């Protein structure tokens, strides 16, 4: 299992949002895409999950080009995304949301109980809120639900779009701890983040995106100590 995007170009109308991005995610890794607003992180992720169309370039997953496969079929292949802004179903209960995560699975009846237990183990807060409507959860709980729902699909690769967005520092630390935990259970993770500090601490490798281009690719720990990166993305100058 390996996810690779090759020379990806994506347009919104006439505007080119992604101008030739290439990213490799190897099995078992946590890879993070960091960058400022408008750098193209979310667009890259949406293109991998199929919500955006590829203008040119390839998305190779498990050795085959999936760039023409519709989004709902990519879930079957093992790509699952927790959307940005915690795109959960606000009017469904926590349980119904999680059940939706299994919508496409053929033997979902048998898997359901087993996987629910796993999710509740990862996120005990969700278990307390099983019959509560998704829209009434707190921001952090909604994020947990979005991740849990994506895991219900038994993904090989989990795509996470800004899981720290709008959360309190304590909750952010909690979410990132769980992300590492999920990775240790064997799920490969591609993580898009603005919170570079947390993302680089958790990831194995990282790509820095600027206005639709990859400007840097390195081991996450190296970037964490790179003065230029610290200056631009970690808010601490090299002189400190």
């Amino acid at each position, binding site marked *: 299992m390996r996810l690779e995007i090759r020379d990806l170009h994506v347009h919104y109308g006439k505007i080119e949002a992604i101008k030739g991005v290439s990213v490799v995610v190897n099995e078992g890794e946590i890879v993070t895409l960091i960058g400022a607003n408008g750098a193209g992180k979310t667009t890259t992720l949406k293109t991998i999950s199929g919500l955006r169309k590829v203008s040119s370039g390839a998305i190779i997953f498990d050795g085959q080009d999936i760039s023409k496969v519709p*989004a709902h079929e990519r*879930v079957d292949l093992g790509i699952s995304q927790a959307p940005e802004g915690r795109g959960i179903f606000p009017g469904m209960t926590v349980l119904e949301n999680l059940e*939706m995560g299994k919508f496409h699975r053929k033997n979902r009846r048998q898997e359901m109980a087993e996987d629910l237990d796993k999710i509740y183990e990862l996120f005990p807060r969700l278990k307390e809120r099983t019959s509560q409507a998704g829209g009434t959860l707190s921001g952090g709980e909604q994020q947990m639900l979005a991740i849990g729902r994506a895991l219900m*699909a038994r993904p090989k690769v989990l795509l996470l779009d800004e899981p720290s967005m709008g959360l309190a520092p304590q909750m952010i630390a909690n979410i990132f701890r769980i992300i590492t935990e999920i990775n240790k259970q064997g799920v490969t993770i591609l993580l898009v983040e603005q919170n570079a500090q947390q993302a680089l601490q958790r990831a194995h490798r990282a790509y820095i995106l600027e206005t639709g281009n990859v400007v840097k690719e390195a081991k996450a720990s190296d970037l964490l100590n790179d003065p230029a990166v610290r200056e631009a993305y970690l808010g601490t100058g090299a002189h400190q």
Partner: protein
Amino acid sequence: MKIRNYWNLRDLGASVWEKANRPKRVVIATSSIFLVGLLPFAGASFLATPIAAYDAVLVYPVGVFILMALGLNIVVGKSGMLDLGYVAFFAIGAYTMALMGTHTGLNTWEIMPFGIGFAMLAGVLLGLPTLRLRGDYLAIVTLGFGEIVRLVVLNSTWSKGPNGIANIPMPPDIGPFKFKLEDQKVFFWVVVIMILLVIWMIRRLSIRRPGRAWEAIRQDEDAAELMGVATLKYKIWSFTLGAAVGGAAGVLYASKNLFIAPEMFTLNVSILILSCVVFGGIGNIWGVVVGATILGYLPDRIRFISDARLLVFGAVLVVVMNFRPDGLLPRKKREKAIVKSEVNA
């Protein structure tokens, strides 16, 4: 929250139903269907409509409106797509009945599958290219489609243009039940049966996979797609089922009215049916039934005040929508109490 607690017929009804065991439910269901079936005999009571014949009013507008509102509700209420051209499917059903009824020897029941089929076909043909659109864009395209269908029949020779088609045959008698213009009880019972069939179909679909998919699409289409829901397929299904119900209503309407003309299929009908859905409670079957009943019945009940009746009709709409913006019997809205975000967690 406050309003819901003291005037909540929906939860009252639901709790009675849920507490009842199976035999009790059968009794409730059959007795209410029986009571509804007796409605045409209540013509001498306060329900009577001045000027228009009471039993005819029960068939059209009331019965046909309920049928169409239920069909539109699959599209607008269940899967959240705004369709402003629903009248097109009604017109296709009606013209199928009119043309086949006058040109072939087939009777209403034999033509019914054709009317439903053509309406569904139109639904698929319109849906395939347009259901990729969302919200306002879809509304505009469907509005255009409704007008196109009306303009085509208005300007074609096979449809006899603005003159319309007359001498459409009535349905053949079913045993002792005879269809008559001056006594439309049998028509009413047929409409009730069709309404029950549609309600049964919607309820079955709602608790199964399509219902889940529609609900997910309505709440967040992108998220639904990410969960593996083939959103376009389910949207087309919803659109086509809605079209089928509209087509069925059209066939029945033409066969009851014996005459149809393009002026009966204007944008007004689409808007009125949408009003029935919104007025009664978008997404809730019983709300839609109540809404369509009131909006279909009221204008004829108050016909004695002649021109002022439209004023009263409008006033009722405005007042009700102000006090109950979610409709008379709204669907459960669990997302209402949204906690914004966890800023201080």
